[in-house]
């Protein structure tokens, strides 16, 4: 495993309540630079809430969230816009803006984030093109999201999340509702993004095979395919949420060795060279 990098995100006893419903219950963890965290959990276990809390979209009821050592818990919405520019998020249903073209969707963070206000237009167009080329959808720039398939929309949303080159990325159920081939393409893109731009990521999923792929494969820029990672592996940590509580945090071997019945339901021992 790689050396521990600087702390990018820290949850300190975070609890999130929606009325009488407790979505996150006293969750604490720390994400260091270069790590990929796979967050497993059943529907309603608080996975999405965790990501949204990390982005400052849901304020915690108790506890504190730190981004690069900076406490974002009490920040006003206007201050949070700057904080969020350091993060990119792929939403569960892609959340592309229906009234905008693919190019306008991908350009949205560049147009609206303060850090890019001085960016010349031709440079912006180039960044959008690069980002769409990364997800192999350069030809769809002038199309509207409604003209794209579910998998293509997910890829455009990845392009939008990475266009501003944020150091921290959140993927909310990136493979949910996709066929196995498209799901593999999406996971391959997430691995490619990690290995090309060396980003830190939190990947929320209910499919263990997604985590297995991230933990054991690397992007080969020469062949453009995924290769089995060497003995050093990848800097991947697994977390398991159950009814808002963090019940496991550790490496893949520990996860697979766990005898917790909830965890074993997720962890089906897959063939590691299945990719």
């Amino acid at each position, binding site marked *: 495993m790689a050396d521990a990098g600087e702390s990018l995100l820290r949850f300190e006893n975070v609890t999130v309540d929606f009325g009488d419903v407790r979505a996150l219950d006293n969750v604490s963890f720390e994400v260091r630079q270069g790590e990929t965290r796979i967050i497993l959990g059943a529907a309603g276990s608080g996975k999405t809430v965790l990501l*949204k809390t990390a*982005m400052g*979209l849901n304020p915690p009821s108790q506890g504190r969230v730190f981004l690069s050592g900076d406490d974002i818990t009490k920040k006003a*919405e*206007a201050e*949070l*816009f700057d904080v*969020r*520019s350091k*993060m990119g*998020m792929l*939403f*569960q*249903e892609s*959340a*592309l*803006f*229906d009234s905008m073209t693919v190019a306008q969707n991908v350009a*949205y*963070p560049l147009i*609206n*984030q*303060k850090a890019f206000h001085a960016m010349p237009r031709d440079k912006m167009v180039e960044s959008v093109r690069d980002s769409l080329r990364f997800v192999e959808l350069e030809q769809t720039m002038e199309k509207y999201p409604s003209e794209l398939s579910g998998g293509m929309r997910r890829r455009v949303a990845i392009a*939008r999340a990475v266009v501003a080159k944020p150091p921290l990325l959140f993927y909310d159920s990136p493979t949910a509702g996709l066929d196995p081939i498209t799901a593999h393409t999406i996971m391959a893109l997430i691995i490619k993004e990690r290995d090309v731009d060396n980003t830190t990521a939190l990947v929320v999923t209910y499919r263990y095979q997604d985590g297995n792929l991230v933990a054991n494969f690397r992007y080969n820029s020469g062949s453009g395919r995924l290769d089995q990672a060497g003995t050093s592996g990848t800097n991947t940590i697994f977390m398991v949420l159950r009814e808002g509580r963090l019940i496991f945090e550790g490496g893949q071997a520990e996860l697979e060795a766990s005898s917790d019945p909830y965890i074993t339901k997720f962890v089906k021992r897959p063939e590691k060279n299945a990719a």
Partner: protein
Amino acid sequence: MLDKLKGPIQEIQEFYQLTGRALRNVARKPHYVDDIILQMDSIGVGSIPIVLLVGIFTGAVMALQLGRELQQYGQTGRTGQAVSIILVRELGPVLTSVMVAGRNASGIASELGSMKVTEQIDAMRALGTDPIQKLVTPRVIATAIMLPCLTVIGDLIGMAGGFVVGKYFYDLKAVQYWSLAWRALGWSDVGQGLLKPFIMSFSVSLFGCYFGLKTTGGTQGVGRATTQAMVWASVFIFVLDFFVGLIFVNGGATV
């Protein structure tokens, strides 16, 4: 008892917070001028056909009924006067606002509601934009500009509808109808005729945005938000009409 009141009080508080932030943003940067123009086209220009249809038939039916009553006193010639006062003071603003509420408060609620349930509102916040600045304020400004304009169109076409009925059913002359209709109107009538739709426009846009942005529960929730927006906007139009009318009636009595 207190628990039962908690929900409605919280909703009122949330509505006032949204109203405050939307109005405060009018003076704050960034201004999304493109969105304001787009909404003016959608809310204003898009509502012209319905305002024309409702206006012409309202004026026509008023002339038909009033003309018959006035005939009993030999005052058919005053039809234009009666039609113009009722239209400009009351029916023009109220009916235009209710029509726009039916078309746009529900339209705004369903559009924003769909964006909410598909996480587009969260995406907007995540990508560096304040949804109230980007979505609510342009709709509030566009409705506040366009509703008085639509009311003027509705008033004029209503008077024209009244004239057509007056001419063909009661043999009124054009000069007689239009000169009385024009002379009947004072500044106070025109003032309240324009102030009412301006104030009512906030009911249309803010209820549409409020119920849209608090949508939960998928597509079923969008349907619910649409209905609630239209019902509350329409009810408040009549409430506001009464209070603005009250101010002008009392003010008029002292002048």
